[in-house]
Structures are given as structure tokens and as C-alpha cells.
């Protein structure tokens, strides 16, 4: 790795100042404050919860144990913060590793999707040299083994990231760390990134620096018997790619036996507010405060326990039998929302919650038969007109969802969402869909019939005469709301002669079929891999740890998650601009990108359920638990919690 010294005297500006500029610019993004709850449909209740602690009754007491409900069949499974794609989940980040190993920057400021410098190890980054140099300074934090959290710990992370890109959850070829020319570490508290070009400061912070978690040099070993290294020791294994890979393999193996984690000499070195006291093979995690935690606030609870659940029924039974004494924070599954009042009476306050995500499903623009149809913007517009977002929210999701009209989530409200995101360019209208199809050469556009292309010149290039609008739509099984939504879509589509052949399969199998068959995709359009037409895995994209809703991972030509095979030079230009423009142009660039993608429909947008990304849910907080706040990125902060009497 090439190391360079910082450029003295370079003009540096703090991102803290820039954040203020962005917030000011939010007026232009959201229409001068138009992003208020009033912009959201009336059917939607207070959809993102309070932006601050949920009120408790009684007076605070020191100590005690708080119990938190893990997601159904979704306990954390991996402790090593260098999380590989196969174990990449918000449970592993937000409910385990981040409690003990703090990332460089903490995201989620109460329920706002923004950085929180109070919880971060580093001060706001400073950008200089036309935004090609980024200087990060660390606060004086300590590891629990007494060592200082230093730039060497960031170097350790970056060395591993460069050596083990394929095993890093958020790696996108061409981006972090490929776009970092070199890094220098002028002193123990400063890290300087030298980039291969200018990058937008907000984007670089939210989507690239967000990926860094300092690791203690005590982990820089390749065997359990190796002596514990010290920060100033030269030639530690991580300083060569081969050595860093060996360290990764060793630590990955150390992470392989969950019940052994609490006693591990590696995993017990933490810089976060919590230490792991026990972890059962079933996923029950018990944390105790880290007495050496440098940040603030310090934990007030004496124990924090995450409880695993095997089913929604088991969750309900626990809520009904044990109530808030058994679980202080729990998520009520959507099917039990009708029982909300009864459960609230047990002693809970119900708060809504929105994770920063959008829901959509792709059509295969590279399908040999239907790709030519799906590539026509008019068809995608007609199809989007058939998605009854307001109806689904009201009747299927009990109001616990927000519509999705473009790439930026509408909840929680953020300065990232453009005004256009709050208005549906293609509102639900069967007649409008029929009108569009008829105008483009399709016949039999009527209920009970299957539409076919009667005039190929109007249907669009590549669409064969006589082609019938009859194609498959596979969706995730086991989620009632997804099934009901897809059945409704089939019913609406049938009104205009589109015959959707529904089928369902588990999430993993739906995702496994979603292969990009477009230009720069991963499969030849005539291969069997491209036979899929539409796939809905029940969610779209969760913006974490790419916290700013730019489209380089999902809509850029050839992007890893561009499942549709969507490719548009204008979109590529607009996406590139969101990552590259100076800070002063962040807002208008995002507006341009979001406006374009809302109208272009690279995917079929559908309502984003509040709660977790796949199903509507309500968070229940015991009336005797204070300090609980929702986090837009589902990261837990039980160090703010306290019990009351």
C-alpha cells in the first residue's frame, strides 16, 4: 500500500458545515418543507414514529435488565464486523457488532436518516484539494484492553478491505476501496484518504466512509497462540495482502462458534458501550456494559438481552403472557395489528417505525421474449398505473406503509427525498393503463381477454406481431401481504388483458433467479438464466450501509443489483453526478436523479411497509422503559435506555 503525506496548507472544509448546507438545501429538495406528514396519504398513520425518545412513566432507576425481541427466525449469527455477503444483514450489524465495535461514523440520528457525530468515533471529515482528499480525525477513544482507538486500527480495516474485497458485504467494483489511490496515517489520530477523483462529500461520507469500522490490532494475528501485537509493532500480518487474507481467514474461523464468542480473547476487546456476556446457540444474546466505554451516554441498564423467536405466534404468546416485563421492546407482526389495542393495554406504547428503504420489483428487460416489451417506457408506465399503492396501503397494509414513487424513501422524512418523490407520476388507473396500451398497438385490451400486439410498429422495436401479454410473476412465499398485493395486481392487470401467471417461492430462491440480462449484465439474454420475467422478493433495497439513496448500486448500467438490466445513458450520467458533484450541488443533483428515475420506472415501485422492510409492523415499547428511540437504519442504542418505577 502506498502511503503519502498530507498536503500542508490545503484548503479544508468540514462536512458538519456542509450538512447544514444540505439541510438548508432541503427546501429545494422537498419543496420548501413540503415533505411534511401532510404530503403522505391520509390512510397512513404517524408512519415513522417520534423523532426522539418514547415517553415512559415513573422515575428512572439505575440498572436492571431490558429484553429486546429479535426478528422472527432472524437472530444475529456473525460477530466479526468485517461482514461477508452471505451473513450481511442488519441483524448482524445493528443488533450485534455495532453494540461492541463502533463504526467510524454512526448513522441514524434518532429516527432521521443522517449521520450522528455524537455517537461516532471520528469527527466530521474534512474535504480538500477539490474533494479529492479526505481527512478524518479520531476522538480519543479507548479499547477495553486499554489501547487507544487509533489510525492504526483504521489502517488494519482498510488493509483487510483491500485484500478481501470479495468477502466484504458492501463491495461494489470500482467504488470503495478501489477509488482510494492511497491512504496516509500522519499520526495516531489522523487518517487521510487520497481519492482517484473528486467525490461528493456527502456521498463519500454516507456511502463509503460509512463502511469503515476500526479494528483493534490485538486481532492482527493468524493463530490463537500468537502473542498479542501492539499498535507500533512493524510488519504485522495485515500489512501485506497475503497476511491480511490470512488474518481474515483466522478471524472468520474464530467467528464460527457463537457460544464461544463471550469468552474469546479477540471478541471481548471492544470499544462500544457493550460487552457480550453470553450467546446461546439459539441466538439469545446477553450484553453487559463496557466499563471502559469512551463515548457517551454510558449504559444505565445492568444487562441488555436480545431474545430469539421462532415464529410470529411465539412472539404474540410472549407478549400476551409475559407482557412488558418479559419484553421491553418488541415488534408486533403485521397480522396481529388488529390486536394492538389489547396488547397496548398490557403496558406498552405502540410507535411506528420506518427503516430507510424502498420497495420495488424488477421486470426482466433482457428477457428474450418480453424484454422488448418491458424496455418500452410506455409499457412500464401502463404497468405502474395498475399498482394500487393507496389501496394496498389502506386495505392490505392497514395503513402501515408509505408509497414508493421513486428511488428515495419517503419515511422517515429526510432532506434526500425530492419533492417529486411525494407525487405519483403514474397514479393507479386501469383506464389510463388501457389507454396507453391501445395507443401503442395492442389489441384485446379488455377484461377476460389476453392483449396481443396487433401493430408491431407501434408496440415498439423487437416486439413481435401477435405476442400476447402473458408472463410469469414469482413472489416471495410466506408473507401474507406480498401475496395479497400480487393477487390484487393480477386482478388489475387482467382488466387490461395482461395475464400475470403468479407463482411463489422462498426469498432465497426468488433472489437467486434475479440475474441481470441487460447490457453489461451477467448472462446472455438467450440463456436459460434469462427466462424469468418478473420477480418480487417482498422488498426492494435497504439503504444501509449505503446510507444516501443514490443509484450506483441498483440502477447504474451493469450495477450488481441492477436486476432489471436497466441501462440508460442519462440515468448513468445523473447517478454519476450524485457521487461526484461538489457539495454545493448535492441537492439539485439528487433532485434531477430522483425525478428522472421516478418517471423512468427502471423497476415497478410498490408501497414500502413501515416496520421492517418486508412486512408492516409496529414497535411496542414498555411504558416502564425510557430513552428508547427508533433508528432509521435499525441500529440499536440500548445505552440510552433505562427502566422506570
Amino acid at each position, binding site marked *: 500500500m502506498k502511503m503519502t503525506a498530507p498536503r500542508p496548507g490545503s484548503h479544508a472544509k468540514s462536512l458538519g458545515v456542509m450538512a447544514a448546507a444540505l439541510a438548508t438545501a432541503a427546501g429545494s429538495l422537498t419543496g420548501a418543507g413540503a415533505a411534511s406528514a401532510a404530503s403522505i396519504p391520509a390512510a397512513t398513520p404517524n408512519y415513522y414514529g417520534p423523532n426522539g425518545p418514547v415517553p415512559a412513566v415513573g422515575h428512572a432507576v439505575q440498572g436492571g435488565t431490558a429484553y429486546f425481541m429479535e426478528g422472527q*427466525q432472524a437472530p444475529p*449469527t*456473525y460477530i466479526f464486523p468485517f461482514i461477508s*455477503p*452471505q*451473513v*450481511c444483514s442488519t441483524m448482524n450489524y445493528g443488533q450485534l457488532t455495532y453494540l461492541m465495535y463502533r463504526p467510524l461514523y454512526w448513522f441514524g440520528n434518532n429516527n432521521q436518516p443522517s449521520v450522528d457525530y455524537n455517537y461516532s468515533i471520528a469527527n466530521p471529515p474534512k474535504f480538500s484539494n477539490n474533494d479529492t482528499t479526505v481527512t478524518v480525525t479520531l476522538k480519543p477513544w479507548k479499547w477495553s484492553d486499554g489501547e487507544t482507538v487509533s489510525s492504526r486500527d483504521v489502517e488494519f480495516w482498510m488493509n483487510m478491505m483491500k485484500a478481501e*474485497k*470479495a*468477502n466484504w*458485504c*458492501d*463491495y*461494489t*467494483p470500482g467504488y470503495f476501496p478501489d477509488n482510494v489511490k492511497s491512504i496516509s496515517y500522519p499520526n495516531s489520530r489522523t487518517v487521510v484518504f487520497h481519492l482517484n477523483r473528486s467525490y461528493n462529500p456527502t456521498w463519500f461520507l454516507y456511502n463509503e466512509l460509512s463502511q469503515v469500522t476500526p479494528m483493534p490490532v490485538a486481532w492482527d494475528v493468524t493463530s490463537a497462540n500468537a502473542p498479542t501485537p501492539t499498535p507500533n509493532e512493524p510488519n504485522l500480518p495485515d500489512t501485506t495482502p497475503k497476511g491480511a487474507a490470512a488474518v481474515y481467514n483466522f478471524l472468520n474461523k474464530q*467467528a*464460527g*462458534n*457463537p*457460544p464461544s464468542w463471550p469468552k474469546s480473547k479477540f471478541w471481548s476487546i471492544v470499544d462500544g458501550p457493550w460487552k457480550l456476556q453470553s450467546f*446461546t*446457540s*439459539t*441466538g*439469545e444474546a446477553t450484553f453487559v456494559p463496557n466499563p471502559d466505554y469512551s463515548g457517551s451516554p454510558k449504559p444505565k441498564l445492568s444487562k441488555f438481552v436480545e*431474545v*430469539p*423467536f*421462532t*415464529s410470529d*405466534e*411465539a412472539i404474540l*404468546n*410472549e407478549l*400476551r*403472557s*409475559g407482557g412488558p416485563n418479559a419484553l421491553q421492546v418488541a415488534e408486533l407482526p403485521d397480522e396481529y395489528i388488529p390486536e394492538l389495542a389489547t396488547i397496548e393495554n398490557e403496558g406498552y406504547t405502540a410507535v411506528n417505525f420506518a427503516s430507510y428503504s424502498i420497495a420495488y420489483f424488477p421486470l426482466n428487460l433482457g428477457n428474450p421474449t418480453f424484454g422488448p416489451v418491458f424496455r418500452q417506457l410506455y409499457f412500464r408506465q401502463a404497468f405502474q398505473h395498475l399498482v394500487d399503492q393507496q389501496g394496498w396501503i389502506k386495505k392490505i397494509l392497514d395503513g402501515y406503509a408509505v408509497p414508493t414513487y421513486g428511488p428515495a424513501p419517503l419515511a422517515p422524512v429526510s432532506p434526500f427525498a425530492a419533492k417529486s418523490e411525494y407525487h405519483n407520476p403514474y397514479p393507479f388507473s386501469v383506464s389510463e393503463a388501457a389507454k396507453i396500451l391501445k395507443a401503442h398497438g395492442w389489441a384485446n385490451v379488455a377484461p377476460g381477454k389476453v392483449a396481443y400486439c396487433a401493430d408491431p410498429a407501434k408496440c415498439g422495436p423487437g416486439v413481435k406481431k401477435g405476442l400476447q401479454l402473458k408472463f410469469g410473476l414469482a413472489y416471495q412465499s*410466506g408473507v401474507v401481504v406480498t401475496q395479497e398485493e400480487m393477487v390484487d395486481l393480477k386482478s388489475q392487470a387482467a382488466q387490461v388483458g395482461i395475464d400475470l401467471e403468479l407463482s411463489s417461492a*422462498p*426469498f*432465497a*430462491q426468488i*433472489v*437467486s*433467479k*434475479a*440475474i441481470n440480462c441487460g447490457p453489461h449484465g*451477467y*448472462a446472455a439474454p438467450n440463456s*436459460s*438464466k434469462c*427466462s424469468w420475467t418478473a420477480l418480487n*422478493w417482498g422488498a426492494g*433495497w435497504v439503504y444501509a450501509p449505503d446510507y444516501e439513496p443514490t443509484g450506483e*448500486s441498483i440502477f447504474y448500467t451493469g450495477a*450488481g*443489483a441492477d*436486476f432489471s438490466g436497466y441501462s440508460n445513458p442519462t440515468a448513468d450520467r445523473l447517478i454519476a453526478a450524485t457521487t461526484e458533484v461538489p457539495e454545493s450541488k448535492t441537492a439539485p443533483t439528487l433532485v434531477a436523479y430522483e425525478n428522472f428515475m421516478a418517471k423512468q420506472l427502471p423497476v415497478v415501485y410498490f408501497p414500502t411497509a413501515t416496520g421492517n422492510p418486508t412486512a408492516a409492523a409496529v414497535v411496542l415499547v414498555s411504558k416502564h422503559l425510557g430513552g428508547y428511540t427508533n433508528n432509521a437504519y435499525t441500529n440499536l442504542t440500548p445505552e440510552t435506555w433505562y427502566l422506570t418505577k
Partner: protein
Amino acid sequence: MTGYIIRRLGQSIVVVIGVTMIVFGMEHLIPGGNEGIARAILGPRANPVTILAWEKENGYLSPVWYQYWVFLDHLAHWDLGYSYKLNQSVDAIIANDLPRDVLLVGTSLVLAVLIAIPLGVYQAVKRNRAADYVGTATSFVLYSMPSYALGLILISVFAVAWKVLPPEAPQGNTVGAMLAHPSGLVLPVVTLTLVIYALFSRYMRSAAIENLAQDYIKTARAKGLPEKLVLWRHLLRNSLVPVTTLVGLSLPTVLTAGLVLESLFNFQGLGLEYFNAASTDDFPVMLGITVLVGIATVVGNLLADIAYAVLDPRVRY
């Protein structure tokens, strides 16, 4: 007998290998091939770099026959592979879950046998009388009721309404940790016991009725043998044959029948583990548990055959 056991063990190995071939073959029939499996495991954030690395790391770039050979080689050393999603060896997963499943299902099985046998005999002796009708009605209700519904009723009464028992099984790494909170085991064990009892008692009653009409029972009675001895020494042993078959066949259910109850009573066992693995395409876990269930099936049948010989000296293999 020894020769029979050796023959059966030989057949068993062939059966288990056949089962592994089917599951292994199904893994490779997934649409999208290796890339499809990689995408299923890596999720929406997979990209060509991570997919290739994952395929390489997990041996998917080798020919299928070689992959199967490696699997068999590892199996011979009881190395069942590594779970893609749970980041644990399959051996560790089984070692964690199996003892807990044995505790839950094994206890229920033993209790059900201990209740069903005397009750079945009692009903046979008192057949077509009030006690028999009550017993028959009870077992019919329990037999026809899904274990899920029965469990929910018990939870509603004892955990939710009366709050005298917890609604979930104890969490813990070991059997000892679970036994430290025995109250949590009551509802799942009672639910499963009642379901199994209903089945066993019907078989026991039928077998006992059939044997009561046999000449050797009449002879025993004619010789003036006390009724108690007639029932326990002569009737019981001969009536146990069908129940023995059932118990033998139930052995693999120790691993799988708990699925519904595991889900309901918040009890992470092998049944749920297999279900989740199937949902997430975690093939090493699926293969490992399949092998285990195959072995349990074979062992269960073998034990039943041996039990026949013990119960009926006329049986020769």
C-alpha cells in the same frame, strides 16, 4: 441375528448414500446453476466478484462428481460441512440441537408410551363400556386435532389466561441449561405427549382386543390364573408388537416432528433448522440433517426388528 444385523447395516449405508445423492442432485438442479446458488446465499447485494469468490471458496467450480466425492469423503470422517448462512459447522449445529430435540421429543415419546400402553389395555378389557368410550373419544379428539391447535389452546389457558406456565421452551445451549427451567418444558412436552399418546393408545387397544380373543388367553383364564397375571404376563407382551413398530418408526421424528411445536414454543431444533435451510438454500445444513434422518430411520427400523425378536421368540432372522 448377527448376520441379519450386518446385512441390514449394509443396506442402510446404501440407502443413506442414495438419499444424499438425491439431495445433492436437487442442489444442482436449481435454475441458474452455481450462480443461482451463490445468489440465493449472498442475497441482493451479490455482484460478479463476490459470486465468483464464493463459488471458489465453496468448491462449486469443480465438476459435480468431484464435489460429491469430496462430500462423501468428508461424510466418512463425519464432517458434514459448513452452513453458508449460520456461519457454523453443520456438526456444531447438530450437536447443539440434537440433545435438545431428544429431550423434548424423546421425553414426550416415553411419556406417551407409558400412558398409552396401560390405557390401551384398560380400554380393551373394558371395551364398549363408559371408560372405553371416554378413552376413545379423548384419543379421537387429540388424534384429529393438529398439534399446533392443541399447543395454542394449552398456551392460551396456562400461559395467557392463568399465567402459571411460560409459553415458550427454555433457551439455552445445553440440556442442562434447559432443565434448569423445567416449567418451560411442560407445555411443549404435554402437547407432543398427548398427540403421540392418541395414536399409540388406539394401536394398543386394537392389539389387546385381538389378543384377548386368542385361545392362549382363554387357556390361561381356564387354568385359573389371576386376571392381573393374565393381562401383564400374557396379553401385554403379545400386544406390544404393533406399538413397537410405531416407536421404531417414530425415531426419525425425534429430528423432524418437532417442527410445528418448535415454531410455536420458540424452540430452535433440527426440524426448524431444516425448514430454514430449505428456505434459504443452505445446502450443507439440508444435506447434514438429511443424512442424520436417514440414519435415524434405519436405526429405528433395526431396533424395531430386534424388539420383535425379543417380544416373540418365534421370530427368527
